[in-house]
């Protein structure tokens, strides 16, 4: 086998290994109530971003658009961040709406809200100059990661 084929195989194996590890992690989370969107007191966990903005924003009832769109299913909390770091903007599903799909929407809405307040607009990436994107196993993983870019992660 050529070096490139070997290396491609190694990449595929490593990716498969990563996916297995992710699966095991999910199983661990299912067995561990503290990791299931609940804190140690049993309350629903907040997703939070910190925004460089004056503390007055904490009492401003005006929600940024991305969060206002979710307001029927999501509760939102502002509070001053420590040490001049602006404002903490937190959101979590309202009672009865808790699911992973909504969590993903919350992460994206929080990140977009932060960008809107700090920079005035949401940064766009597409369309961008690019060559052909042939379908490959590893390419599919990167494409998926990019599709859910702001919905995933550990925010």
């Amino acid at each position: 086998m050529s070096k490139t084929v070997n290396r491609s195989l190694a990449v595929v194996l490593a990716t498969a290994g990563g996916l297995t590890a992710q699966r095991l992690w999910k199983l661990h989370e299912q067995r561990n109530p503290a990791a299931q969107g609940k804190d140690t007191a049993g309350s629903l966990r907040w997703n939070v971003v910190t925004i460089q903005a004056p503390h007055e924003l904490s009492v401003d009832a005006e929600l940024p658009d991305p969060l206002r769109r979710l307001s029927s299913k999501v509760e939102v909390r502002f509070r001053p961040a420590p040490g001049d770091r602006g404002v903490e903007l937190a959101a979590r599903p309202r009672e009865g709406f808790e699911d992973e799909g909504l969590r993903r929407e919350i992460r994206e809405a929080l990140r977009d809200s932060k960008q809107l307040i700090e920079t005035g607009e949401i940064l766009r990436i597409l369309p961008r100059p690019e060559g052909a994107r042939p379908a490959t196993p590893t390419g599919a993983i990167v494409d998926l990661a990019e599709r859910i870019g702001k919905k995933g992660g550990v925010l």
Partner: protein
Amino acid sequence: MRALVWNGINKLTVESVDDPKILNSHDAIVKVTRTAACGSDLHLLAGYVPTMRAGDVIGHEFIGEIVEVGSGVTKRKVGDRVAVSSFISCGKCFYCRTEQYSLCDNTDPNPDIPEALWGAAPGGCFGYSHALGGWAGSHAEYIRVPHIDVGSFVIPDGVSDDRAVFASDAAPTGWMGADLAGVKPGDVVVVWGAGAVGQMAARASMLLGAERVIVIDRFDYRLRQVRDVIGAETLDYTKTSVLAELKELTGGRGPDVCIEAVGMEAHSARPDFAYDMVKQQLRMQTDRPTAVREAIMACRKGGSVFVLGVFGGLVDKFPLGAVMNKGLTLRGAQVHGPRYIPMLLERMQRGELVTEHFATHVMPLEEAPRGYELFKHKQDDCVRPVFVP
């Protein structure tokens, strides 16, 4: 337009792709006049950064002329000749306000990838995989630059293109290593790696008052540049025991500051190199920490080690015991370009900072695959290929 596209491991082609467009009000389109290949691009080429995608336009070190600006741009105008920071920074978030520009909160549209890898997402970088945003790179005729007011700097008259292009990435990266490692007058500084970034870290250390600066490499043509152009001392690690040599050179103490400018594809004459190589090829570790390991072992008690070389993930046999028991300060960062570029351009204008000797192979963009070949295999004494679109 024409652009250099990554099509898989060790596969680069120059292709016709769509022109970039203004998508946000703070964007500009820059016509690229010089774009350099960086040692960290070699990691992309070799497939060590798993979030590359066939079709990606690479390149992150460049200068050019602004040809179009968005409605929100206030500090730059069409016609400006600019050096552009490789990392993209919004200028408004906590990290940008505290001059930690590569940690920008708002410029990576795919934070899920770095958050899974590292626990948090740094800023986006041009042409450096989808983990750092999936931004189209600079090895192209034109490039879209978001937040142009923050990341670009007008090149002073009298600074040549071949000198200025390295103000984009190599010079600020090297300078940052010396600055954030805390180099001060009287220090003995050792730099691992005599590429452009290592040479810049050495020059910065000298300008910050270091008493002795020693650069380690295995390529004689790069070590010659260190001696002749930068004015620092050199060590060839294939001809000596680095740890023994450094002990002797530093009165038995070890260097005060160790700067690693090598990265995840390090080489060494020591047996742990073979171990790192096998583990990396089997993907049991993502990176070869061979040079970092040596820097940590060499460093004096209470000294400082700075990691400038690019690393992606996990390494094995890391001398954490040495970090703790010797009381070391271990730091790293991607380049905070806007913090240093204006000062570096002034130094370039005054002749204090010379960089054009890195541009050993200036060639048309159409020949970029050949340039990468020369650079990767260190043929024809290639320090850096620089492409002219």
